[in-house]
């Protein structure tokens, strides 16, 4: 007879695993990926595959040759970081910039802290912000989305709704004027007109922006899938998005001429991507539901502050990174309700 295994209870394990969670998240990102391929063409595939491949490669190199420990590139976490990094850059980004981004994401933001589960900051966001600060030109020239699979030569760059709005508000125009009449300018005798897409287009993703942030609808679809699979809980997305709506709503009521309505904030920029896929990253968000509500609230408020008064048109990435830094503090101060505490 074989020897018996003697170990402590419990002797059964639920069917949950890190791998299942990670691949579940990756699966939830498919609708968003499809939308970006639809609007940005083959470039979207190039950027995503390259980013995923580079992330996995860096993790493999570091684990195998630097740490000389077990290689865990198939656990799905590097794949997610790769996709998220791709989602956070324009589709026409040069290859070499993605590779630098992947190195920062995996090498600096993840592995230098000890790998999966140890990183205080969301790796893909660190990568994105590094690129944004280092290569501002390449990171902010967004190709205009157009029909499916048009050739690269035809792709025209255009601004994001948030960036455009911020620039035009600076010159003293009102929100209504910018939204309704658009902006025209002349360069070398050619007349250009840019008008912020209407809400339907914004919802579907027909607007300028990073790969993964354009379609609010596809992102929400992925979010619902993750909620149903219990990969994420509702607390962070709801408090994040909710606080953005409330904050921008108050400003809008106070002065609709210089503050755009909350609906605009909701479906433009990286809010959905950030609230659903980035802020909910288990490793860099609080563990208790109450802590997650606070975390989401902080992300929302900081996003609005940066969007409206900050130097950048978009504040989601910075907001999440800043709140990531507060996570240990939140975890420490928010304790779950202990059993028997009420009776005392």
């Amino acid at each position, binding site marked *: *007879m*074989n020897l*018996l*295994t*003697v*170990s*402590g*209870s*419990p*002797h*059964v*394990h*639920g069917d*949950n*695993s*890190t791998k*299942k*969670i990670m691949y579940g998240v990756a699966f939830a990102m498919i609708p968003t990926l499809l939308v970006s391929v639809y609007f940005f063409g083959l470039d979207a595939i190039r950027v995503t595959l390259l980013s995923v491949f580079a992330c996995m490669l860096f993790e493999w190199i570091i684990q195998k040759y630097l740490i000389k420990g077990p290689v*865990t590139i198939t*656990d799905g976490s590097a794949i997610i970081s790769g996709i998220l990094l791709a989602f956070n850059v324009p589709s026409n980004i040069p290859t070499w910039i993605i590779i630098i981004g992947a190195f920062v994401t995996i090498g600096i933001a993840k592995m230098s802290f*000890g*790998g*999966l*589960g*140890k990183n205080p900051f969301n790796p893909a966001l660190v990568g994105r912000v590094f690129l944004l600060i280092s290569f501002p030109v390449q990171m902010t020239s967004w190709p205009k989305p157009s029909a499916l699979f048009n050739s690269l030569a035809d792709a025209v760059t255009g601004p994001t709704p948030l960036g455009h709005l911020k620039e035009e508000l600076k010159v003293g125009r009102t929100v209504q004027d910018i939204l309704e009449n658009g902006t025209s300018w002349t360069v070398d005798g050619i007349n250009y007109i840019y008008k912020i897409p209407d809400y339907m287009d914004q919802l579907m993703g027909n607007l300028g922006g990073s790969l993964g942030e354009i379609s609010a609808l596809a992102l929400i679809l992925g979010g619902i899938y993750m909620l149903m699979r219990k990969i994420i809980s509702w607390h962070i997305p709801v408090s994040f998005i909710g606080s953005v709506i409330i904050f921008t709503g108050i400003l809008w009521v106070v002065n609709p001429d210089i503050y755009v309505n909350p609906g605009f904030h909701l479906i433009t920029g990286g809010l959905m991507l950030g609230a659903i896929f980035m802020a909910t990253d*288990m*490793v*860099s*968000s*609080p*563990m*208790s*539901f109450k802590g997650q509500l606070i975390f989401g609230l902080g992300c929302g408020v900081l996003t609005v502050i940066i969007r409206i008064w900050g130097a950048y048109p978009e504040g989601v990435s910075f907001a999440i990174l800043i709140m990531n830094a507060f996570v240990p503090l939140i975890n420490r101060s928010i*304790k*779950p*309700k*202990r*059993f*028997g*505490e*009420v*009776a*005392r």
Partner: protein
Amino acid sequence: MLKTFKIGGVHPEENKFSADQPAEVLDFSKQVIIPLSQSLGAPSKAIVEKGDLIKVGQLIAKGESFISSNIHSSVSGKVLKVDQVLDQSGYRRPAIFINVDGDEWIEGIDRSSEIKKEITLTKEEIVKKVHELGIVGLGGATFPSHVKLMVPEGKKAEVLIINGVECEPYLTADHRLMLENGEEVLIGTSILMKGLGVNRAIIGIENNKTDAIANLAKLALNFDGIEIETLKVQYPQGGEKQLIDTVINRQVPSGKLPIEVGAVVNNVGTAFAVYEAVQKNKPLIERTVTVTGKGVSKPGNYKVRIGTSINTLIEKVGGLPENTGKIVSGGPMMGKALNSIDVPVVKGTSGVLLFEEEEARRIEPTNCIRCGKCITVCPMGLEPVLIAQYAESEMWEEVEAERAMDCIECGSCQYTCPAARPLLDYIRLGKFKVGQIIRIRSKK
């Protein structure tokens, strides 16, 4: 909506394969080994010697301190020796070895199948009987039952809760008992009510045992003050504090006993044993044990004499399957892995589970991904990940401050952990160390 406890909980695969198998009386083996440590508290002291001839039901070991219990012989025959034996704890501890000869019972035990409903004993006599005949809690903790019946000065018992939850997967012994001996369980409940001086009892049963609920609900119409409550299936509802929370919506404070909120909890198996002791004068010498597992050809429930080797039970279900990798005494969530099949069945043995090789091994742990699932499922509202990390870093003060001593070791955290981290191993270590520190502190 069905009631359940308010904080945490999981729902493991139920796998109650033996639910339809009537409890069968198991022939006793040639030799039984009756360990002297069968209940919570101090071990009992043997009062028989090598060569003594003894009968079934005879007192063979006395519980001498307040929290300890008497032990009676489950067989008749000759005492071979009083010696150390490897028991379910994995340690060698004293036990009485008896060579079986016939089945001769001592005088005064009513062995008829007639159900005796009328309770003639007084409150004090009931407590004395339960004490004398070695009744202990059969839910798993084996706390001496007479101690629970003696309500401390200044406290008042308001309600008796009977635990028919059987929330552990696989186990069906209590289920069968409620189906086959429902009336005895209810009489036992009435006896416990009288012993406690309460006029209300609630029997909590999870919704996966609808036949047992129907049976007891029908029978309970003839009993005063006994209610049957159908509960949502949720682990660890059979935990004392969780069940009280479920049934009467009161939370026992940290470090306190159920009596603090006016409740006393007993298992259905205990209620049955109390019936047999008080009405039939029969000591606790046998119990129902579930023998099951995915690879077991005919899982079943057996009425077993205490001291019978677990090997005898395994042979009864078709022998040990070829690929057995682990044998667990009790349920899969809180049971104990055995290191031998030659250990005896004791009062606290509710089941024997045979796990196949691939189920036996633990999943290789990976890095904690800080998902917080362990916090969500902890029924005590603790942070298992934090306690485990403190224990891993040997920070015992922090382990204590995070209320590790509140942990009921239900295993929900480790069961849920996607990284398969050995959370409960570390928490147990932490509790052990903190326990030592508390003892030293109280001596000063």
